[in-house]
């Protein structure tokens, strides 16, 4: 399958990305203001509750990104869809950043509550850590050299294995925390008041827009990369046959 050549763009921006980018920036500023000045302190956690505005959206988008990678992997293996393959790769790269952010904010936020930087009993956080490692592995496979289609296939299988095994990881950590450690209720349980709730939802929206913005850019980069490498198959065939003529044969 070939990618039809488009006018090769000098950049990956477009009016969509510009509007999104502006919206994201406006959103972040709003979140900052609301988060620090308007939303109330939490009785237990004082100011550190503000982490929720970054932590929860990051967590949600992490799993959205991972979902895209998983679906993309399936579509590549099933339909050999280049579009989905590029999307899977892009989502993994962006997702791994969101995942790291989730873990860091989770750790910092948890410190006052748990008195440690890491609570093994927090099932969701531990599962997310494993997910992070799996995504790193996925990206490592992507950066291995070799035949493009082979790389895509390998990465897709890694993606699928990760998607299938993540629920098993979650279940096993849950049992483990239940039966041996004292399972800590996740820091995100509990009621949320009006402004806090609003800011958090706003955070999810802003993060989602950021995700879209990043995906658009990254996807387009991936697309252009492929084009550069592929060129046009017919051209390549013609060039190949020309070798025969150069060698003096009658093609």
């Amino acid at each position, binding site marked *: 399958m070939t990618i039809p050549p488009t006018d090769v763009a000098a950049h990956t921006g477009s009016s969509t990305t510009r509007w999104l980018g502006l919206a994201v920036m406006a959103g972040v500023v709003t979140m900052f203001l609301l988060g620090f000045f308007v939303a109330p302190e939490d009785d237990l956690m004082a100011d550190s509750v503000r982490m929720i505005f970054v932590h929860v959206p990051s967590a949600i988008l992490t799993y959205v990104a991972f979902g895209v990678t998983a679906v993309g992997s399936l579509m590549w293996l099933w339909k050999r869809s280049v579009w989905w393959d590029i999307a899977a790769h892009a989502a993994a790269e962006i997702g791994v950043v969101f995942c790291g952010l989730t873990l860091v904010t989770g750790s910092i936020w948890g410190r006052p509550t748990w008195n440690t930087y890491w609570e093994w009993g927090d099932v969701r956080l531990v599962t997310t850590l494993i997910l992070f490692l799996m995504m790193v592995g996925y990206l490592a496979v992507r950066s291995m050299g070799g035949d493009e289609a082979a790389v895509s296939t390998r990465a897709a299988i890694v993606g699928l294995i990760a998607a299938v095994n993540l629920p098993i990881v979650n279940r096993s950590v849950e049992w483990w925390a239940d039966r041996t450690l004292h399972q800590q209720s996740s820091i995100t349980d509990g009621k949320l008041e009006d402004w806090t709730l609003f800011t958090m939802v706003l955070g999810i929206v802003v993060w989602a827009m950021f995700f879209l913005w990043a995906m658009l850019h990254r996807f387009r980069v991936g697309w252009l990369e492929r084009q550069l490498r592929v060129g046009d*198959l017919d051209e390549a065939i013609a060039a190949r046959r020309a070798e*025969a003529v150069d*060698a003096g*044969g009658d093609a």
Partner: protein
Amino acid sequence: MPIVALRGLVALLGRFPALAGVDLEVGAGEIVLVQGPNGAGKSTLLRVCAGLLRIESGSAEVLGHDLSVDRAAVRRSVGLLGHDTALYDDLSVEENLRFWARASRVDEAAVPAALDRLGVSPRLHDVAVRHLSAGQRRRTALAAVVVRRPRLWLLDEPHAGLDQRGRDLIDQLIVDAAGDGATVMLASHELDRTVDLATRHLTVAGGTITADRRSDSGWSSSDEPGPGVTEQGGSDVS
């Protein structure tokens, strides 16, 4: 029914069109010599016929099986000798042959005879492959092909690395196989000996077939080799 029928075949190695449009029909009992410069696509052609590579476009039928649908069926019926030997270093000659015989569902009793035909001395049968010379390994690898009695033989530089007697053995094998009704396609730079042997002579360049001559159209070994081939004296092991 032709043994091999290719039409407009395009095969990619990654993104590179190793075969850029091949039309070919080969019938039973033919001995086809495939020659051409390095990188022309000879090995790729053999591998496609073995059912190892996906085809990008065009049609390909080998031994009655459509390659775009069922490559596995083709693989079982061909014997491919590539540049590598597919032998396990730690196992002995006989153990290797027995494994491949069992895997190919061939009677293991045929193993000693196959080794004999390839001139692999019985003293070597229990020797681990890692201790063999390159020539002996080649013979063992060929024995693994012989044991399967394939209907289509695909040999990539079969004479490479063999001594004079070994090369004679190969020639005899090829003639015997064709005599049994099998079809042989071999890629070789050894034009001096194989041109006489072959019933058909293909020249591959730039991923296509640029010349296709049969022995009854009257060429002899003193003819110019096909276009795109450099003259060489002695063997040219690529």
